[in-house]
């Protein structure tokens, strides 16, 4: 999996394996956790200080719960690595980026050239999200 990991962060990759949410909540020293699609990201909010990696599972690219999980974590101030894992495809990555994901562990290899094109294609965005892109309304009104 590590071979296919796409990281859009400058820091060193975290090497501690992610534990399940139940294990994480039951032990005090884990620094990496994996959220399944149906699990509540808000359960992590009291522990953000010690987290270095949150891995969010996408069992199918059609299952969009992970987008909300990511935004909730970023809105609460989480700054560690936020990884989308599973059925992660080229055409969903731009939205994932906007929701705060900054690393990707796709189950199948990604065409990086296509990904770069898709990430760059929309010059502006219409709404606020978890990234720092200014929405069009802000650009219009300075």
């Amino acid at each position, binding site marked *: 999996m590590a071979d296919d990991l796409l990281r859009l962060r400058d820091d060193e990759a975290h090497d501690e394996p992610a534990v399940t949410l139940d294990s994480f909540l039951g032990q005090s020293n884990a620094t990496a956790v994996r959220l399944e699609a149906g699990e509540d990201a808000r359960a992590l909010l009291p522990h953000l200080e010690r987290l270095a990696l949150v891995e969010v599972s996408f069992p199918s690219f059609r299952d969009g719960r992970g987008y909300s999980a990511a935004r909730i974590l970023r809105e609460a101030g989480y700054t560690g690595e936020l990884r989308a894992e599973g059925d992660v495809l080229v055409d969903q990555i731009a939205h994932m980026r906007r929701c705060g994901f900054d690393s990707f562990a796709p189950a199948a290899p990604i065409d990086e050239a296509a990904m770069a094109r898709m990430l760059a294609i*929309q010059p502006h965005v219409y709404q606020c999200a978890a990234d720092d892109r200014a929405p069009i309304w802000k650009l219009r009104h300075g």
Partner: protein
Amino acid sequence: MYKYDTYDQAAVDARVAEFRDQVERRLSGALSEDQFKPLRLMNGLYLQLHAYMLRVAIPYGTLDSRQMRMLAHVARTYDRGYGHFTTRQNIQYNWIKLEDAPDILAELATVEMHAIQTSGNCIRNISSDQYAGAAADEVTDPRPWAELLRQWSSFHPEFSYLPRKFKIAVIAAGEDRAAMRLHDIGIEIVERDGQHGARVFVGGGMGRTPMIAPEIRDFVPLADLLSYLEACLRVYNRYGRRDNMYKARIKILVHEIGAADYARQVEEEFAHVKALGIDLPAAEFERIAAFFAPPAFETGLSETIDRSDPDFALWLDQNVKPHKAPGYAIVNISLKPVGGIPGDASAEQIDVMADLAERYSFGEARVTHAQNIVLPHVRKADLYAVWQALAEAGLAEANLDLISDIIACPGLDYCSLANARSIPLAQKIATRFADPARQRELGELKLKISGCINACGHHHAGHIGILGVDKKGTENYQLSFGGSGAEDVSLGKITGPGFDEDGVVDAIERATDLYLARREAGERFVDTYRRLGMEPFKEAIYG
């Protein structure tokens, strides 16, 4: 009307380039059909029984002459010369080639049009009142709100892979012309203490489990609207069912946990989201609203209309509605000629309507959820000329809201989901009741046909509703009475055992005969049904 600025244009152009890239990757095999499907759906492209179907967005049903001419051009160049106006105030083309789709989208983009989010499990085209800006009963023009929501929902990063599709309607009048409470979110703009705000209804819809949306919040100030809607959507995205696509709409979530509990969760989320600073400044709303300022209505116009041509007078009484500006009227163009396909218009007819809008209606036209077209601002003095031009183009059917003004889905003639044909049945009913005097005698009677349980033909909301089902390999039609998508919103009740195609037409005739025999003064068919209940109608139908 709203006009794109360079940001809007760049967004739509970029979307065309993105979709072209995706189509190329699909044709090369880099994308599987499974992976490509949601991408093409979010660009309005369906794979139907015989070909691809492209659904083009007409935001809140408003378009100008230039855009209409483009719709005619697409029909002529890429389809078989027709377009089909839909119950979501959009237009769809039934004979599209996949490899042409990016070029069509590029042509549409030159007139500020697109097919973004006309399908897929995302926030769909926002629908609204077709009389917006013209109706005397509106609190304000709802379209600036709808345009604001169009922009906010376009390429929304969190809400593009929802459990299921998501439809929002915005109205601002007491009379509901948009079936607002049969949407996932229905917004009614109301005034309180001199301020406009949104009354928010969540969890309505048709489909196999029809629901009328309960009120979730009685007033959301404009300044909080986007935060509040983000909260509504986030609760749904996180907790809406994903195990069964037939239970995935927000109406099921709201029904299962209860409107009060859903509202409480939204309030909690809203308290959090509100603090993020995602709401628009008032200046942006004002910028959008300025595009919808009333056109330069003339004053001192004559109110008198020469009714000496009897055919014109009939059309006038049926299809023309009062306008808020003196000397003006709202013209409804029926796309329901007897024997025709409901909602269809030829490229030539679309061009005629574009010309009439340009010459007589400040360049503006509207699409209605009942699959008709509106010229919103016509001088009363011009009505006769408009009628003559419509008559010449086969567009002067005087049947608005009468029994032959049928809403019908494409049905088994086109749709891969359908169990039964809708169009031939609509044609048969319209033909049976073809006599215009008889239709007028029956009065307002909203008849709606769906060719399967997904209810695209709004049969649950029909005064008379018809649902086509497959019964051991033959088409069978279930009849229901008493539905309404208007401010007297209600869901129809099934009469009893279904019928074959001719049988259902006979049953409707027996029911309308009973109505004529039993109605009291001023009662519409649906009023008589509500007063008498199902029993006498059952007796009349099944004897």
